[in-house]
C-alpha cells in the first residue's frame, strides 16, 4: 500500500514542485497572497480564488485527460461549454425547474460527446478533425439557442452553483473536487483506466485482445462532453448569463495545456487525472499571480508562456535523461530497494 502511495507521489512530484515554486514566487511579490480569511462561514483568499477561477479548466482537463489517453483530443469542449451554458440559461428563463434544467444541460453535453465519439470510433475520423467540426459549429449552435443575445437569468438556485458556497468552499471548487474524485475512482478502481491506456498505446492490439474499443472511445468523449457541460453551467452561473460568443473561448487550449503540464503524453497511454488537475491549477495560479503582481497586462501572455515552457522543459524526456544520468549511481540501486520492501 505504501509502495502505491509512493509511486503515486513520484508521478505527481514535478507538478507539485512547479505549483509550490509558483505559489512561493507569487507570495514573495505579493505578501497577502497566502492569507485566508473566514467570512460568513466561507473561506476567502487568493488561494481559494485560484481554485475557484480554475474550476472550468480543471473540469475540462479531467475529461480531456481521458480523451488524450486514448490517443485522441477534444477541441470542441470550449464550444460545448457555450452550448450548455446557453441551454441552461434558456431553459431556466423559460420557467423550467432547476433539476430539469441541469439534467437537460448535462444530457446535451453527453450528446455532444456521443457525436464526437461516433465520428472518431465508428467513422474512424482523426480526433483533431472530428472534434474541430463541433468546435466550429458549436458556437453557431449556442448562438441559435440564445438567439444572438446574451441571455441573463436571476434564478437563485442556478446562481448558487456559480457563486454559492458549501462547507466553507465555493461551489465550483466543491463540484470539481467531488467530480474529480469520482472520475479518478471510476477509472482506477475499475479496469477502465488500464483498458483506456491500452487503447491509447495500441488500438489494434487492444481490439484483438478483446477490448471493447469503440465503446470505450465513445465513453471517453462522452465524459469529456459531460465535463464541458458542468464547466458550461458553472461559467454561465458565475456571470448569471449565457454568452454564446465568449463562454469557454480558447479554454480547450488551456485544458490541453493542463493535461500536458500534468505530464500525460499527447501520444496517448499512461494518464493521471490528479496530475492534470494540478496542471490546471498551475495554469490558473500563473494567471492569478501575474494579475496580482501588477505587471502590465500586455506582459501576461508572454510571462505565462515562459513559465509553461520552463515546466515543459523540466518534463522533457531528454532533460530527464540528462538529470537521471547525473544521479545514475543512486538510481541503479533503487529497484532492489523497492523489491526488498
Amino acid at each position, binding site marked *: 500500500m505504501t509502495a502505491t502511495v509512493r509511486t503515486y507521489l513520484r508521478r505527481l512530484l514535478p507538478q507539485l514542485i512547479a505549483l509550490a515554486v509558483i505559489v512561493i514566487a507569487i507570495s514573495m511579490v505579493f505578501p497577502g497572497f497566502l492569507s485566508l480569511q473566514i467570512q460568513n462561514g466561507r473561506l476567502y483568499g487568493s488561494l481559494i480564488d485560484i481554485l475557484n477561477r480554475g474550476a472550468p479548466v480543471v473540469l475540462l482537463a479531467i475529461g480531456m485527460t481521458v480523451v488524450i489517453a486514448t490517443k485522441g483530443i477534444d477541441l470542441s469542449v470550449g464550444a460545448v461549454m457555450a452550448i450548455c451554458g446557453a441551454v441552461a440559461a434558456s431553459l431556466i428563463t423559460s420557467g423550467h425547474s432547476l433539476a430539469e434544467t441541469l439534467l437537460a444541460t448535462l444530457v446535451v453535453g453527453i450528446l455532444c460527446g456521443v457525436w464526437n465519439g461516433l465520428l472518431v470510433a465508428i467513422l474512424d475520423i482523426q480526433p483533431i478533425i472530428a472534434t474541430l467540426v463541433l468546435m466550429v459549429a458549436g458556437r453557431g449552435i449556442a448562438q441559435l439557442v440564445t438567439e444572438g443575445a446574451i441571455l441573463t437569468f436571476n434564478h437563485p438556485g442556478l446562481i448558487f452553483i456559480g457563486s454559492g458556497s458549501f462547507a466553507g468552499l465555493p461551489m465550483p471548487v466543491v463540484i470539481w473536487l467531488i467530480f474529480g474524485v469520482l472520475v479518478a475512482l471510476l477509472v482506477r*478502481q*475499475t*479496469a*477502465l483506466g*488500464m*483498458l483506456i*491506456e*491500452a487503447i491509447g*498505446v*495500441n488500438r*489494434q*492490439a*487492444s*481490439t*484483438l*485482445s*478483446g*477490448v*471493447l474499443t469503440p465503446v*470505450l472511445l465513445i465513453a471517453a468523449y462522452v465524459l469529456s462532453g459531460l465535463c464541458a457541460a458542468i464547466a458550461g453551467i458553472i461559467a454561465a452561473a458565475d456571470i448569471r448569463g449565457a454568452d454564446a460568443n465568449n463562454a469557454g473561448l480558447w479554454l480547450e487550449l488551456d485544458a490541453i495545456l493542463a493535461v500536458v503540464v500534468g505530464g500525460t503524453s499527447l501520444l496517448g*497511454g*499512461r494518464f493521471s487525472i490528479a496530475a492534470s488537475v494540478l496542471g490546471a491549477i498551475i495554469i490558473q495560479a500563473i494567471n492569478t499571480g501575474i494579475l496580482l503582481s501588477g505587471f502590465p497586462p500586455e506582459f501576461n501572455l508572454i510571462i505565462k508562456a515562459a513559465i509553461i515552457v520552463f515546466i515543459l522543459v523540466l518534463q522533457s524526456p531528454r532533460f530527464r535523461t540528462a538529470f537521471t544520468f547525473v544521479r545514475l549511481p543512486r*538510481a*541503479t540501486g*533503487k*529497484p*532492489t530497494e523497492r*523489491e526488498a520492501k
Partner: protein
Amino acid sequence: MHSTSDNILSAVRIEKGFPGTKALDKVDFQLRRGEVHALLGENGAGKSTLIKCLTGAYRRDSGSILLDGVEVDPRDTFDAQRLGIGTVYQEVNLLPNLTVAENLFLGRQPRRFGMIDTRAMNRMARELLAEYELDLDVTGDLASYSVAIQQVVAIARAVDLSGKVLILDEPTASLDAHEVAMLFRIVRRLKARGLGIIFITHFLEQVYEISDRITVLRNGQLVGTRETADLDRRDLITMMIGRELADEIHTHHASAGEGRLRYRFRNYGRRGHIEPFDLDVRAGEVVGIAGLLGSGRTETAEVLFGAHRADSGTAEIDGRAVDLPSPRAAIRRKFGFCPEDRKTAGIVGDLSVRENIVLALQARRGWTRPISRTEQNRLADHYIRALDIRTADREKPIKLLSGGNQQKAILARWLATEPEFLILDEPTRGIDVGAHAEIVKLIESLRERGLSLIVISSEIEELVAYSTRVVVLRDRAHVAELDGERITAHNIVEAIAAANEGGRRDGDR
C-alpha cells in the same frame, strides 16, 4: 588470406548496465581487417547493446574501444561514422521520399555557387553505386526500389562515410534468397577491400556461408570467439543457448488427432480475403497452415478469430452453431490469437509486462470487474516463470523486452484466459534459437493438454515437427490437406508448388 593479428577494431572489457540488469559484462571483441565476423546470441544476449556501445548510441559504463590501435570514444553514431564505424540496420534508416542520390549524399551534397549541384551529385551517386554493380536511376525516389536495393544504398552510404568498419544488423531479415546472394556478393567485395564487417543475423546458414569468425554472447557475457570453419552447427547452438537443443526439435511426430471433433467450419470465408474453406479441428490437435506469403494464411486466421467477419459459411463448436463476428465474441468462446505482426498488433508497448499479460483476461471479464492487483501480480509472476520470460521485473514496459520475450508475453496473455482454441500466426518469426525451441515445446505441451491449435508458419520443418495435420494454401484458397505419414516437408512443398491439385481438396474424408 589475411593477416591474423591485424585487428581493425578492438573492444576491451566493455561493461554496460541498465537499472536492474547487466546488459554487458566485461565483453571483449576483436574485428580483423578484411573479415566478416558474425555476432550471435539469443535475443537479449547483448548483441544490440554491444553494437550500440561501439557506435556511441549508448554510453558504456567502462571498457575501451580501439580503432586501428588508437583508443576512441564515439559520443554518438555521427561521431562513430566520422571515426570510421558505419552501421546499417534491418529497417533501412534512410529517407524514402528523397531520391537515391539525395540519400547517398544527404548532408554533404556537392555545391556550386552555394547551391546544391544536383547534376554532379547524381553523377557521383551513379559512380558510387557502380562499385556495387548497381545500375539504377539515382533520381528515382528511394521508396520506389525494393528493400534489397535500399539496403545496398544504405551500405554504400555507410561505407562511403566511414570506410573502416561496417556493422550489418540483421540486413537479410526481409530479403529473399536471390537478394541475399546479391548482398553477400557486395559484402565479399567490401571484405576484399579490407573493411572489417560485423554481421548480425538469426539465420545460421548465412553465418556459415559468409562469416570467417563467430563471436557468441549469452546473457551479456562473452561465450567465445571461434573460426567458423572449426565450429560445427551443434556446437554453435550449444554455445548460444547453453544446452543441447537440436534433439528437442524434430523428436517425435505427433499422431493424427483422435480427440473429439470440436470446431467445425463449413464454407467459411470472406470475399477479397480468403476463399470459402472447410476446416475441422479436434481437441488435442495442431493444424499447421502452410503456404507462401500472400497465400491467405493470415487471412484464414483473421476470419477464424473474427478480426475480419466471415461473410459466408457457418461455424460450429461442439455441434452447436456459433456466430463469431468479432474478436470479443471469439474470446468469449475461449479463442485466442497471436498475430503475426507482434509490434503493431500484439504488444501494447508502453504498458508493463504485467498489464500485457492480464489484458485479454481483463477485457473478457469486463471493465466493471477489475482483476485485483494481487491477482495480476500472481498471474504475471506465474507466466514469467512458466514461460521463462526474461525481464528485470513485471513492471518493465514490454517494448523494452527482446522479440522472443515479447512473443512469450503475448502467449501468456492468451494462456491466462485458459483458451481452448489457440491460433498462432508465425509464433517463431524473428526470435532467437532458444526462445524458438521453447515456443515449439510449448505448442506441443498445449496440444497434449487437449487444446486445439492452429499454427501458421513459414518454416516447413517446424510445421512437420508439431502438426497433426497440415493445410496448404495457395492464392487465397485452401488447396490441400496432409495428415499422418503424409506430413513431410517434401509433400508440403509439392502441394504449395503444384499448379492445380497438390492433394485432395480439404475437408472431404
